[in-house]
């Protein structure tokens, strides 16, 4: 087969790849080198001015980035622990197994934005049922959405509720695919449930766990709709994440050039840090 034929077959795929991936990235890089904003909406060339501004004069971006790291790592750890526990619960033969499996998946079937609106209503500080109930128990109203620290945890609660089922699903599938023999062998060796978990279940689940954690970390890093609906990044910038900040710069203030700079920098940081995290997790969990 000669080169031309290959090219004909490759072209449709390449075309799609270029159209949806390569071109947008290159365009973003070019845009980040321009001063495109609402006053000068044109692709001029201003060199690395935007990058200098980002690295010397924009603490808000870096704060939002570290906030994002905190939020995504915390939510994913919680999701992993809760998801694993739920999966362990319905893994073995128990009564109403199917019922529980479906119930645990319900949050995943709901629309995140709508659910966040409902959560916002729940947590409304003067009208929401949560503070009402707590009031009935004699607890003072909690500032779920207007206290800078508590608001972060409100975001975490909503995110954990929404995405734990996904973790649960991956881990349950993993548990169900494990071989039976190691568990029988551990039973014959007289291992307690704790030892069985530490020496059999957990090591066998390590590869699946790493996959699930990485997938969720990537997803969690995009966190935007929850913040947007629940707190709009507030109070102040207390729950503002990178993607939300980039959204504000680009689509509210129309500093397109600068927003492109933020996006590209964010992309590079994410690729590097997720690669490192994946490597570290593999080292920690699979001792090869």
């Amino acid at each position, binding site marked *: 087969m000669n080169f031309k034929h290959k090219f004909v077959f490759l072209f449709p795929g390449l075309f799609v790849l270029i159209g949806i991936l390569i071109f947008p990235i290159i365009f973003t890089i070019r845009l980040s080198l321009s001063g495109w904003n609402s006053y000068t909406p044109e692709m001029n060339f201003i060199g690395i001015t935007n990058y200098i501004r980002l690295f010397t004069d924009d603490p808000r971006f870096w704060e939002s980035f570290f906030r994002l790291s905190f939020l995504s790592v915390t939510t994913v750890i919680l999701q992993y622990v809760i998801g694993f526990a739920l999966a362990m619960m319905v893994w073995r033969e128990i009564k109403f197994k199917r019922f529980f499996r479906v119930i645990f998946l319900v949050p995943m079937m709901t629309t995140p934005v709508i659910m966040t609106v409902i959560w916002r209503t729940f947590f409304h500080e003067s009208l929401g049922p949560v503070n009402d109930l707590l009031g009935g128990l004699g607890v003072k109203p909690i500032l779920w959405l207007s206290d800078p620290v508590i608001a972060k945890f409100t975001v975490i609660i909503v995110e954990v509720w929404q995405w734990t089922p996904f973790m649960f699903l991956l881990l349950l599938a993993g548990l169900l695919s494990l*071989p039976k*023999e*190691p568990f*029988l*062998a551990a*039973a*014959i*060796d*007289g*291992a*307690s449930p704790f*030892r069985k978990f530490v*020496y*059999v279940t957990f*090591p066998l689940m390590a590869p699946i766990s790493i996959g699930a954690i990485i997938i969720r970390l990537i997803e969690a890093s995009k966190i935007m709709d929850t913040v947007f609906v629940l707190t709009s990044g507030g109070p102040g910038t207390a729950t503002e994440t990178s993607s939300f900040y980039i959204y504000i710069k680009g689509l509210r203030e129309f500093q397109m050039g600068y927003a492109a700079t933020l996006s590209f920098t964010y992309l590079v940081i994410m690729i590097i840090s997720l690669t490192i995290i994946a490597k570290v997790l593999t080292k920690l969990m699979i*001792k*090869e």
Partner: protein
Amino acid sequence: MEEQMAKIDLSNISHTYNPLDPKPTYALNPFSMTWENGKRYAILGPSGCGKTTMLNIVSGLVRPSKGEILFDEIPVTDLKTEDRNIAQVFQFPVIYNTMTVYDNLAFPLRCREFTKEKIEERVKSVSDTLNLSSFLNSPARKLTADQKQLISLGRGLVREDVAAVLMDEPLTVIDPDLKFRLRRNLKEINEQYKTTLIYVTHDQNEAMTFAENIIVMDQGEIVQVGLPKDLFEKPKTTFVGYFIGSPAMNIFHSTVSSDHEVKINDTTIKTNSNLGNLKDKNVKLGIRSEFIELAEKEKSNTVKIKLTRVEDFGNFKLLTGKMGDLVIKSKVEREKPIPDGELNLYFPPEKCCVYSDEKLV
């Protein structure tokens, strides 16, 4: 060393996987059996004959539909696997990946809260027997498949109180030359520790070389229990004749012609069996290809065959011939000259087995 091995009694055991069915199919038909302390048994049979079900009943992974299991006269039918004092080695090596070899071997004792000194002593003794001493501090996952299988076995042997070590085709993943060594190893262990070993396999060579007693199973039925020699020379059913030995036993349709004689086509063959009491005169005659001899000329108990094929297996030659439409196979020494075309084969009467309704007369 103080040993507390047990005699294992299987009393009227039967098992079905669909007990609610009005006419259940039995994976294991009712049987009773006793396994003596410290002996080596092999359970041999084709896939799906119920041998793994039997093993799982002993280990407690399956509760028999009927019957009772006793270890040293104590019923254990309702006890869980972990409370039964048995060890099991599976088809694929099961090791604790995160631990060293030493920790792997020590694990069953640690779970039972033995003292450190006791654990050290037992692990040392077992690792010496299994040739694992030089690996004790390496991570278990770094070992080869056969060494891993030895670890699985070792975890069973470190406990002095195991009633039996059950093995479910444990050598499947092992290289052929290592298989031989491991089998010998197992025998030595059995002699040293006096552990009852129960070995499930579908490989007759494995069973023959390993066990003192072989239990042959077919379709949920125990067809014969005996020494390798008995199975080979006097198979109790035609199934055992077919299943054991390579090539399978020669079996011919024949009719009873007198108290000790049967007729195959027109040839009369004398046997040592007493056939006088048989109602059904249609029987089968079985003889091992190893016992059939080349005869110089026609005499009594010879059959005339037309040679169709000679295969050289190195240490012997396998002759295939036809008598009418019957196929006869015979093993002869490789030096023996083979005449072309027609030749006479001698059936020694003491080696002829007569089967009526597939059972040995």
